[in-house]
């Protein structure tokens, strides 16, 4: 056999072998044929949609005084009237009288316009000078400038045409020197100047590039150790000996996960340092910015790196979880590829300039970190957003780690020769268990979190119109569907004891007395707490307005419906999810107070608005304690319902009291609760706690093991 023939034999055998591997086919066909076109078309579509949206929005323009504002409105009106009827719908403008300083141009006021009429507003032909101030680093501000320039440009053309026509129509020629051709052809002079400082421009430029580099570098650094420490360990045969030591899978996986996160972060840091140093010392900055003066806010870099820590933790946790599922190095590599693509899609999607860190973007895994880093560079982010991003990322990371720990110890994953993944997912292979595990709990809650957040955002957004109708949908969809039916269904599928998990049992009689005292006093204390909080961090005007709108809408609704929607439904369903499923699951891995506090913090985070989180967390601690002590979900439900019903009932007696316990009623007349009443409430609360505490002692000790 000649060497060529040998090549051919080997080639044929290897090709047959490799094409029979479905994963090769998947990587070879699916990714190029489906993924890239979908990604690219998606990106182009999104960019076009963004441009189209910016061209039709309403922009707010500031004018220095009433006269200027009126003149500008008149100009805009004339320009819009002069528009060709065939032209598609374009942006509209609201002119406000405000002396907006340069640095305030952006989200609320997009541009400022100064007009200069040398000979009065209607003097024709004379050069009318319009100076537009805008911020080039704010996409809406830039769009406002472009749209306004476009509109006034059209007016300029119309005016020029009219002037020429007027000249042509004149039967008597004008005296020489009375007509200036320049002013006829160019009756309006539009100049636009950006207010962005060099530093803002630098921050904007960095914010566009650096976050995605950091994400890529963290991924690059973390992937290899994640595979090596999990699937690699299994493939080398060292995992079995490791699992035989008296160490819990969670301990092992956390140790490994921290290594992966450290290496991911170190890679990101070194890359960032290298990029920074090359730009600074290698003259790259100078070469890139010689046309446009830019100053990079280098001081932000450490803050951005710090914010990358949760991302590194989250991504490492996901990688470790995914690789824990793999039994060989190659299998892990195959699993990792979709994860990387899954991380890059949101990272790329949020690079569209108009995507801001707000609404659903706050809880979009990975995407929210990229946006946060970008907004930190651009110095446009609110601290409440930082909190939501950090908390949601931490929740996802914890769920991923819990899942990794669960997979890591599974025999189906541990032993290639005997295991089957079916044992992990098919119901018939599952053993009945008395309560959910910590990983099952955290994974469900981590999935519920963004879904619930999106549901609320879609439903409410920034408007509270038809609030009652929306509350009914919320009660059905979020509370009944997500918080109650879903965990119950999960328990049913996983063969988890529903009665034990949700603590569906009657508590001792005195527990009821305790929670009646707690439920009747907690609202008054909460009210005082909200007052103190709003004194420390005064609520924004927007929030105040929002809550007043809510209260205005709720005021008209019948009391029974309000009690049903705002008191009973959340009380029953939230208790089922947070004190039933969540607290029970956490208690399988945490001690009493750790479990109560973690469940309460998650309960707080689920209230989504940062201003409401402290109070919700405190209430969560009290409800968690009640549930733990009484070993029943029912007293907590009563306490929760009473707490929520308080403002509803009192407001039906005194109309000054708002129905909605938000952040601003501290400023309401009802804020004046006498000190005697407060002291009484405090005493009742303490007495309630003591009674609930003693209720546990009367219980049989035989249930202790379950807790």
């Amino acid at each position: 056999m000649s060497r060529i023939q040998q090549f051919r034999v080997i080639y044929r055998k290897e090709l047959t072998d490799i094409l029979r591997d479905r994963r090769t086919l998947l990587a070879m066909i699916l990714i190029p044929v489906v993924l890239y076109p979908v990604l690219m078309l998606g990106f182009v579509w999104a960019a076009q949609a963004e441009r189209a949206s910016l061209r039709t929005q309403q922009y707010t323009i500031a004018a220095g005084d009433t006269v200027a504002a009126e003149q500008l409105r008149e100009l805009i009106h004339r320009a819009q009237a002069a528009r060709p009827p065939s032209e598609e719908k374009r942006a509209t403008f609201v002119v406000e009288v405000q002396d907006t300083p340069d640095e305030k141009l952006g989200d609320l006021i997009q541009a400022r316009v100064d007009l200069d009429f040398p000979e009065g507003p209607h003097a024709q032909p004379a050069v009318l000078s319009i100076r537009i101030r805008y911020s080039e680093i704010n996409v809406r501000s830039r769009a406002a400038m472009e749209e306004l320039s476009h509109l006034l440009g059209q007016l300029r053309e119309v005016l020029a045409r009219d002037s020429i026509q007027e000249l042509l129509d004149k039967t008597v020629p004008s005296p020489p020197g009375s007509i200036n051709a320049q002013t006829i052809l160019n009756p309006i002079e539009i100049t636009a100047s950006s207010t962005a400082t060099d530093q803002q421009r630098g921050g904007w430029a960095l914010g566009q590039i650096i976050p995605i580099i950091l994400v890529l570098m963290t991924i690059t650094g973390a992937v290899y150790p994640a595979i090596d420490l999990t699937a690699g360990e299994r493939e080398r045969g060292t995992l079995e000996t490791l699992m035989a030591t008296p160490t819990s899978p969670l301990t092992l996986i956390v140790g490994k996960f921290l290594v992966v996160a450290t290496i991911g972060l170190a890679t990101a840091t070194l890359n960032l340092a290298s990029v920074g140093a090359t730009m600074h010392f290698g003259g790259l900055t100078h070469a890139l910015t010689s046309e446009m003066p830019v100053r990079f806010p280098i001081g932000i870099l450490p803050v951005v790196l710090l914010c990358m820590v949760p991302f590194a933790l989250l991504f490492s946790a996901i990688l470790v979880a995914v690789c824990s599922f793999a039994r060989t190095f190659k299998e892990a590599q195959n699993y990792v590829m979709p994860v990387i693509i899954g991380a890059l899609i949101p990272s790329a999607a949020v690079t569209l300039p108009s995507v801001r860190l707000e609404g659903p973007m706050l809880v979009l895994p990975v995407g929210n970190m990229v946006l946060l880093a970008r907004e930190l560079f651009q110095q446009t982010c609110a601290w409440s957003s930082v909190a939501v991003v950090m908390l949601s990322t931490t929740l996802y990371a914890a769920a991923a780690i819990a899942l990794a720990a669960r997979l890591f110890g599974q025999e189906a994953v541990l032993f290639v020769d005997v295991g089957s993944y079916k044992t992990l997912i098919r119901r018939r292979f599952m053993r009945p268990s008395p309560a959910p595990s910590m990983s099952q709990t955290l994974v469900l809650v981590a999935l519920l979190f963004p879904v619930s957040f999106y549901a609320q955002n879609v439903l409410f957004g920034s408007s509270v119109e038809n609030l009652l109708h929306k509350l009914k949908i919320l009660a059905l969809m979020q509370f009944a569907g997500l918080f109650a039916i879903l965990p119950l269904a999960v328990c049913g599928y996983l063969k988890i004891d529903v009665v034990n998990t949700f603590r569906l049992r009657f508590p001792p009689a005195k527990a009821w007395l305790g929670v009646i005292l707690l439920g009747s006093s907690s609202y008054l204390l909460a009210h005082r707490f909200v007052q103190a909080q709003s004194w420390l961090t005064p609520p924004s005007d927007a929030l105040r307005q929002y809550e007043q709108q809510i209260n205005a809408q709720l005021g008209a609704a019948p009391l029974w419906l309000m009690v049903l929607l705002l008191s009973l439904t959340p009380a029953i369903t939230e208790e089922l999810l947070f004190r039933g499923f969540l607290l029970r699951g956490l208690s399988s891995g945490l001690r009493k107070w750790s479990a109560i506090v973690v469940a309460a913090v998650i309960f707080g985070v689920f209230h989504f608005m940062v201003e409401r989180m402290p109070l919700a967390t405190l209430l969560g601690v009290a409800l968690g304690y009640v549930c733990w002590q009484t070993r029943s979900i029912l007293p907590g439900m009563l306490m929760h319902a009473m707490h929520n019903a308080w403002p509803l009932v009192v407001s039906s007696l005194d109309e000054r009291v708002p129905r909605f316990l938000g952040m601003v009623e501290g400023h309401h007349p009802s804020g004046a609760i006498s000190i005697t009443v407060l002291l009484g409430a405090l005493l009742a609360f303490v007495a309630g706690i003591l009674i609930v505490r003693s209720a546990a002692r009367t219980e049989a000790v035989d249930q202790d093991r379950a807790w």
Partner: protein
Amino acid sequence: MSHVEVRDLAKSFPTVDGQEKLAVAGISFQVLAGEIYGLLGPNGAGKTTTLRILAGLMRPTSGQVLVNGHDVCVDPFSAKKCIGFLTANAGLYQRLSPRELLPYFGLLNGMEMPLIEERVNKLIGWLDMDEFADTRCGALSTGQKQRTHIARALIADPPILILDEPTLGLDVLTNRTILDFIRQERQLGKAILLSTHYLDEAERLCDRIGLLHQGRLIAEGDMPALRALSGCPRLTDIFLKLVDHKSEIAPRAVEGAAATDAPLLAQAKPLSQTAPSQESAS
């Protein structure tokens, strides 16, 4: 007294066609302190699965395993503390030397550093590991790796040793070192459960032997008892004779037996009672 007690242990695995494959079909035996118990059987008899369950790496489908009184399912942490587990075909951390690897496992077993150092030095001396103790495991020969494995299993000085194929693929000299070492551990009063394919070796080394075939314990006892039962002098012949006799009555797979325990136990009972020397074992 340290010992292992296995009661009606059964383990089944799901197969690709949705059936249940019974790997261990209800076995019971005990390993006492100061004895070497040999668990012997052909490939696929269920030896490794049994040992993995004993080491807390797998959950049994039914039955119970007590290690020094600790149930491996209920309290795996305490059970694992009592066990030194040596797996067949296990790997070592290629980029660590034995002197780095042994303390790692000592720490995972909850030992203090001074004690670990003392123990590491002792094991290196006993197992003749001086010349390669500082070489990375990736560069060690098969025999050196196996000695490192044994040192790793013994680092915490556990009262119970579970050794799966401890002499697989070793040369005569290393083989002798390791067998001598196992005997020495027996002298120290440890309960040793050993699985091997080398029947001659088992005959010389084990105090009692359990013959496992198709997931069932088809015979159990010391060599005289097994000889009396089969009428054959050598363990190889005893094994072949008993296996030929039993293979007809033990179905390999139980069709449709999902996760229910009852059929497994029902089958396991009479078979585990066939072991001839139950009394000597208890």
